[in-house]
């Protein structure tokens, strides 16, 4: 039964362009790039590279071609809408568009906390079912006897452990 569904799934996978750059970018919500020729310059919106290698719109329609002709003259003749249209021919996203903040951080933080919580469950299960009993040397009684022995040996009497103990009054120094 399991083998049959695996075969059906692989059949579907063969039909798609599996994990090509195009489909990956499309899956992430970017514009579908027409060609995949990676030896040609590519357009990119990057904050640290303000001028991409090529303009965004490659094939201009008729009114864009006319606008490009008008651009060859004096720019004082261009209206504001035409200037914006020329900008949008050259660029896909403005810096303002690029640097839009999103709510992604909430998803990220939520996912992280989810997995940390799940890890907490695993840790509890380990404490309940995996760990052996605690060593007898960690009981309070043993630790008291251990500390008494350390004081008898005068461990670090200058600045450390035994220096905090008052040997005359047999108690910790105040």
């Amino acid at each position, binding site marked *: 039964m399991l083998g049959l569904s695996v075969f059906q799934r692989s059949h579907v996978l063969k039909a798609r362009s599996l994990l090509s750059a195009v489909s990956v970018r499309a899956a992430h919500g970017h514009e579908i790039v027409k060609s995949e020729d990676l030896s040609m310059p590519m357009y990119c919106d990057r904050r640290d590279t303000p001028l991409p290698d090529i303009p965004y719109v490659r094939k201009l329609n008729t009114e864009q071609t006319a606008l490009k002709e008008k651009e060859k003259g004096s720019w004082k003749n261009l209206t504001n809408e035409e200037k914006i249209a020329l900008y949008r021919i050259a660029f896909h996203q403005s810096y303002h568009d690029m640097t839009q903040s999103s709510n992604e951080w909430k998803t990220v933080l939520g996912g992280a906390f989810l997995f940390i919580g799940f890890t907490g469950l695993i840790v509890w299960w380990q404490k309940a079912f995996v760990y052996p009993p605690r060593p007898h040397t960690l009981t309070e009684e043993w630790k008291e006897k251990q500390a008494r*022995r350390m004081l*008898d*040996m*005068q461990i670090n*009497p*200058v*600045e450390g452990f035994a220096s905090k103990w008052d*040997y005359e009054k047999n108690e910790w120094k105040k």
Partner: protein
Amino acid sequence: MSSAVIAKPVMQGLLAKRLRFHLAVAFTLAFAAAGTFKFVVGDSRKKAYADFYKKYDSMKAFEAMRDAGIFESVKPKK
């Protein structure tokens, strides 16, 4: 847009200028940190050790440890 000509900005020696300034700052801070550490930590620690050993009677300490029963070569004196 004004038509006044602005002064030409500094084009060279930028790294050198930055390094000169930050090098002086770095050396000052490093020496200050070392000096502070020497006074606060080093000198007080030396004084603590000197004071301890001024009043230290090693035989008395040995007898106290012996009576506490931590040695295997000498047993406590009854």
